[in-house]
């Protein structure tokens, strides 16, 4: 599937029904494919040797052979069927692709899969404990912290990582004094710390409420 990822161009998509079928057959959202494919046009000649790698995702080792260009996000979505992490912008701007790497939140779209061998990667699929939702997940449900839900996996993973940062005493731009750090997790602190997660539906007030609630539990 890696080859198709890189060889479909916007032009072929626009021109040919066959290419479109291929695109749909790859099981990827058309928008996401297109975003990645617009620029990678016209280069089908160079054979790329794949890199064997083992990624540890949600406590399971996954052996993969990937084109070096594969981002962590594409590895999750296109090669491991973990489509919970979303592709919003693919450029580090929206936070929809947020996952936890060694407990820290990062944007998986601006990271190469190959850079993450040996890391402990947790996606939205790995947060719940069986049927027991993670407290942050439960709080988003309880507070209706979404509308369409596209940004939600990223919001939740980001919030889980963020609450860990607060527990470690990290200051933020909203903290009055960086030397002392956050006095309390005020709404202003939550908003500042979550500013890397954009919600197109603007469910922000409920997202803040959910995180405020979850902060007391986790």
């Amino acid at each position: 599937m890696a080859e198709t990822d890189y060889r479909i161009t916007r032009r072929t998509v626009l021109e040919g029904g066959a290419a479109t079928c291929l695109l749909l057959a790859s099981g990827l959202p058309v928008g996401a494919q297109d975003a990645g494919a617009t620029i990678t046009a016209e280069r089908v000649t160079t054979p790329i040797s794949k890199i064997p790698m083992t990624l540890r995702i949600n406590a399971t080792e996954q052996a993969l052979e990937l084109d070096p260009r594969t981002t962590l996000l594409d590895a999750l979505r296109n090669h491991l069927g973990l489509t919970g992490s979303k592709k919003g912008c693919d450029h580090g701007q929206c936070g929809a692709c947020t996952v936890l790497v060694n407990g820290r939140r990062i944007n998986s779209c601006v990271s190469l899969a190959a850079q993450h061998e040996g890391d402990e990667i947790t996606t939205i699929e790995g947060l719940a404990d069986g049927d027991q939702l993670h407290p942050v997940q439960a709080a988003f449900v309880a507070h209706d912290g979404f509308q369409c839900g596209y940004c939600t996996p990223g919001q939740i993973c980001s919030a889980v990582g963020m609450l860990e940062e607060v527990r470690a005493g990290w200051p933020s731009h909203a903290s009055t004094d960086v030397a002392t750090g956050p006095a309390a997790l005020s709404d202003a602190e939550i908003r500042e710390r979550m500013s890397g997660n954009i919600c197109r539906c603007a469910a922000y007030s409920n997202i803040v409420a959910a995180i405020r609630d979850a902060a007391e539990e986790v």
Partner: protein
Amino acid sequence: MQPFTYERAGSVRAAAAAVAAKPEAKFISGGTNLLDLMKLEIERPTHLVDISRLPLDRIEETPEGGLRIGAQVRNSDLAADLRVRSRYPVLSQALLAGASGQIRNKASTAGNLLQRTRCPYFYDRNMPCNKREPGSGCAALEGFNRMHAVLGASEACIAVHPSDLAVAMAALDAEVETSLPEGTTRTIPIVDLHRLPASTPHVETTLGHGEMITAVTLPPPPSGRQLYRKVRDRASYAFALVSVAAVVEKNGVRIRRARIAMGGVAPKPWRTLEAEYVLAGAEAADPAFSEAAESALAGAVGRGSNDFKIPLAKRTIRQTLAAAVEDA
């Protein structure tokens, strides 16, 4: 993205040699800027040398009483370090005013200093851009140049350097340590790391091919109050229109010494010695702040949509100085 081969470097020496061996090779650290640009094929390396696992992620005390920050120290770790927060708060403030929690968790100290401009025409491959394609022209000169430089620019390029960290580092007189492919090292004052565009805006730094940043050192903390003020279009997660890093030491009612660097206004972190000269020995009050602001922007040239940056930068300097002397 164009095809590339990938290797994970085992040592600084090996990393520098691996990049030096191939003209189109590049270091990759957090990847937050490089991969963004590679996806758009603005950057087209044929080989990537991954330096993100090299053991350059420590912050150590120097014998002189300063700090040595490894090139791989993440922006979030640097901002949260207790020594940085108490002794160099301007650095924490600048970092926390930049990017997002997720980006800061990946972004490295060296990668932040070497990030490229956010000029929209640099990002748009359909437009002329001397930085992306030397000799093609500069679409920003007559275009939408609201974000662009008013100081240090040239007729070839008016892009600004987007780093907040670099501005604070400039006010703190930081030095950049590098390792060259031959195995030698050198030290570069932070203000000499970036070059002005002149007629070659695509040459952005004074580093050679394969020269790797290994650390940034800070001299002992300056006495006085440190402040970073960033003015932007949104309250969070936006690049600076104007930013000011100030370190102000008072002596009674007078200023003993002030150091001022500006961001968002020039192709590199902009240290303004003229303003510092005005402030040294002056009474810590607005006549001196205004005079300092005027002298800092004396050579400024607006290009139309960014004219507003000149008065905005002056006001930001005055306001930052006023806040800094309050309890300095």
